[in-house]
């Protein structure tokens, strides 16, 4: 292949440099300049990821676009980047979402614009770093560093209870990842002084140590996903975060956790992963069913979507721990789809909130009469969230349920039931907000989406439809990577039992 440009480095550093450039524009006097630079940076950040897609060889089992440079020589750490199909999809999703977030925050954010835009750009670069890192320490550094911009985003531009939400978000996720750090250091020593993921994959650990390492990873990634019962930070963070923050949080940040399971837990400690799979599936099912029920009774739209996110991420973790092709592919498709759908839903709530300054479902009713275009788009996302065939939400959940039937009928049965819950809470909310008569005079004064909002929502809407109607290209991208991953898991690292 002919790739002179270090495309992955560009995907990471271009947004970060753009973020610094935006910061340098200074205060709010030049807000317009800051916005324009931010948009240029975000678009460029997305454009540099396109050659990744174009040049990606879907049949190659190895990581592609590899870049290796010595980073910390004394410690044997490398600046080692490379992607497979799974990373590629997430990087594309991330870079695109950043563009949408910049557009969505264009006029909504009026205070400290430069800092707002810069935080999102830097965050985008860091998350691309997580998806591209092939060195466990590099992965960890990017993984942790994402906390800083998100903390600022929630805390500065968030709602009334933002300080509590920001601190809870930061400390909760930091707690998880610190134990992972100890596990990584342990693995580093066990691997004879290497953080390279391919070395860690080769590491044959005894069973009890595998379980310990798995648990350490579990704490970090389960908090990030979030899985029940460590999900409580998410509703708070979502409700308080500004719209852009919620979109990035739901669309990409939650995926860091699921990605961590795929990239670290499964290949490094396969035996423990298989041994503990029933626990993981159990927790996922609780998330899917119980959190689905919790979502049903929410009176705050953002909180409802937040709980719905947890419930949908339950499908992702369940799919991963089924260890069959449909399950894992379904999980990954679900991750991407959830990015579009929840991103779209949060944008919809943002559009309403900007005009009404309320997220309470009871304050609305009859929105369709005043905002027909908006109602149509909102409808699409609501349907996708319910898992309607023809939308992206259907594909992932369907694959996961298919995968589950191969493992245990009751897993599949329980998961399938929740499609009903999903439809119930989403459509009920939709009905109460959009249909009915206009009773609130504020609703009467609503104006339909403007071009900017339409663009942001429309991009997500197209993706939801494309992925729902024609999921093949997405599946093709990840197929080889998933089979490679499953090959890692199926091979036990334990010594054969002595006869």
């Amino acid at each position, binding site marked *: 292949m002919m790739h002179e440009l270090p495309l992955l480095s560009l995907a990471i550093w271009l947004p970060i440099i753009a973020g610094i450039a935006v910061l340098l524009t200074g*205060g709010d006097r030049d807000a317009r300049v800051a916005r324009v630079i931010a948009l240029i940076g975000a678009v460029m950040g997305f454009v540099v990821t396109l050659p990744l897609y174009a040049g990606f060889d879907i049949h190659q089992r190895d990581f592609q676009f590899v870049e290796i440079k010595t*980073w*910390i*020589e*004394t*410690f044997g750490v490398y600046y080692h980047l490379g992607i497979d199909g799974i990373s590629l999809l997430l990087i594309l999703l991330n870079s695109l979402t950043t563009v949408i977030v910049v557009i969505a925050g264009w006029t909504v954010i009026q205070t*400290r614009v430069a*800092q707002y835009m810069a935080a999102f750009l830097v965050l985008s670069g860091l998350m691309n770093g997580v998806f591209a890192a092939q060195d466990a*320490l590099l992965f*960890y*550094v990017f993984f*942790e*560093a994402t*906390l*800083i911009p998100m*903390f*600022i985003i929630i*805390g*500065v531009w968030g709602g009334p209870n*933002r*300080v509590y939400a*920001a*601190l809870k978000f*930061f*400390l909760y996720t*930091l*707690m998880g990842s*610190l*134990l992972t*750090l*100890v596990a990584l*250091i*342990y693995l*580093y*020593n066990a691997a004879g002084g290497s953080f390279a993921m391919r070395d860690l994959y080769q590491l044959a650990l005894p069973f009890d140590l595998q379980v310990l390492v798995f648990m350490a990873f579990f704490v970090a990634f389960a908090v990030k996903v979030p899985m029940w019962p460590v999900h409580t930070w998410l509703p708070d963070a979502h409700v308080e975060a500004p719209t852009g923050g919620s979109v990035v949080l739901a669309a990409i940040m939650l995926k860091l956790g699921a990605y961590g399971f795929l990239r670290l837990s499964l290949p490094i400690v396969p035996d423990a992963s298989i041994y503990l799979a029933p626990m993981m599936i159990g927790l996922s099912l609780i998330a899917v069913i119980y959190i689905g029920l919790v979502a049903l009774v929410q009176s705050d739209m953002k909180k409802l979507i937040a709980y719905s996110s947890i419930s949908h991420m339950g499908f992702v973790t369940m799919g991963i721990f089924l260890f069959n092709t449909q399950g894992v592919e379904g999980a990954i498709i679900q991750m991407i789809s959830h990015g579009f759908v929840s991103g779209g839903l949060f944008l919809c709530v943002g559009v309403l909130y900007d005009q009404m300054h309320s997220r309470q479902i009871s304050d609305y009713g009859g929105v369709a009469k005043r905002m027909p275009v908006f109602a149509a788009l909102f409808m699409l996302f609501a349907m996708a969230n319910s898992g309607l065939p023809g939308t992206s939400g259907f594909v992932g959940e369907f694959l996961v349920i298919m995968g589950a039937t191969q493992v245990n009928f009751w897993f599949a049965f329980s998961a399938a039931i929740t499609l009903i819950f999903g439809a119930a809470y989403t459509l009920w909310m939709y009905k109460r907000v959009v249909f009915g008569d206009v009773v609130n005079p504020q609703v009467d004064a609503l104006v339909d989406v403007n071009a900017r909002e339409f663009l942001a929502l429309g991009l997500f809407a197209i993706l939801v439809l494309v992925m729902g109607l024609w999921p093949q290209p997405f599946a093709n991208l990840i197929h080889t990577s998933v089979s490679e991953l499953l090959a890692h898991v199926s091979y036990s690292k334990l010594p054969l039992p002595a006869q």
Partner: protein
Amino acid sequence: MEYITPLWPAYPELFLLVMAGLILILDLFISDDHRVFTYALTQFTLLGCAALTFLTSNAEPIYTFNGMFVDDLMADVLKLLTCVVVIAVLAYSRAYVSARGMFRGEFFTLTLFATLGMMVMISANHLLTLYMGLELLSLCLYAMVALQRDSLQSTEAAMKYFVLGALASGMLLYGMSMIYGATGSLEITEIAQRAADGDYLSAVMVFGLVFVVAGLGFKLGAVPFHMWVPDIYQGAPTAVTLLIGSAPKFAAFAIVMRLLAQALGDDILVDQWRQMLLIMAVLSMAIGNLTAIMQTNLKRMLAYSAISHMGFMLLGVLSGTTEGYGSSMFYVVVYVLMSLGAFGVILLLSRDGFEAENLDDYKGLNQRNPWYAFLMLLVMFSMAGVPPMVGFYAKLLVLQSVVEIGLWWLAVIAVIFSLVGAFYYLRIVKLMYFDEPQTQVVLKPTFEVRALLSVNGLAMLILGIAPQPLMVFCIEAVRASI
């Protein structure tokens, strides 16, 4: 031993001594209006001292003054850093001390003599040299804490510092005398030789070891010998707190290395002091971090943070490996940089008759001046150990050194307490970024402070993105010396 003692390894100290004496006399003839001359001369002296240290550095240890003084790579690196840090301390403090009537000759000569004390400690190869350096440093610092004679708080702090410091020195001295009794030598290389040969009285040695560790614990400010730290940090004028909280940590680290790693670094003895350090480290991390949460005074909070950082630093020492010592040195260097930055911001925010030491004084700093808020944010995240700041790598290295010797549970304890610590560092960020400012006073620092603080703050990020050079420096320095 050579009969004609080469003087050149001690040129930096000699230069510093001569210049300090000169400044002491010259200053008598300088009026208050021209005091800036003393300041410039002091900075020049420190620069010259740093240059001399650099010029006289050498990879192989060189012993001089009949083996009482050693010039090895670790000493060179630490002395160089000490000079640079003291230069930064004086630059940060200038506006603060002149606003409070402390911009006088004493401030500078005491600082120089304290620096001399640190350098002697760093280069000591003899228990008496070590003690002499320590006392020189301590006496200067006692006086400096009390420099604001009319301040009740400062006087009380100085009194406390003196009494507890003297007690600690006494313990250390007692321990040293025991070690002398056990091995029959005061020279560190000689003691190490006897320890390696097993040629010592075991019971007396262990007895002495306990006292030495206690004395070192005092000087480092590790729990349970930490009582003085919060009171002194809070009570001393901020400029002096900055001095106490920065460069002397290098010297304290150096004497820990000289006494524990070099003199008593034999495997049998390492097992003895490891247990004591282990308890001290865990307690320091626990009490330092937990108590810091309750503080409303930033200086006091940073004092407890210093205690917890010393606990972290001890993790590397107690591993007993060369890599572990190197990681501790890296930790100390990083910590001093962070501490310098944090106190630099406090000094920046303090004005005539106003001490910016309450947490509420930091509210809305981002709206008053985004750049300094950003620098403080870098320092705080670095202290919390969040990547990509350099503080993360410092923690990573010491954790690696304890995991390497199989104490992974200790690493788990350490990260749990660093999570607790993250809370109060985050609170500062929260105050600066999420809250509304209480005052609109415009900050007008001089150019040198602006430049220095920017370099200091950005160093957190730059060293975090490229930690390799500093890491190599520390690890190689320790490897070449121990």
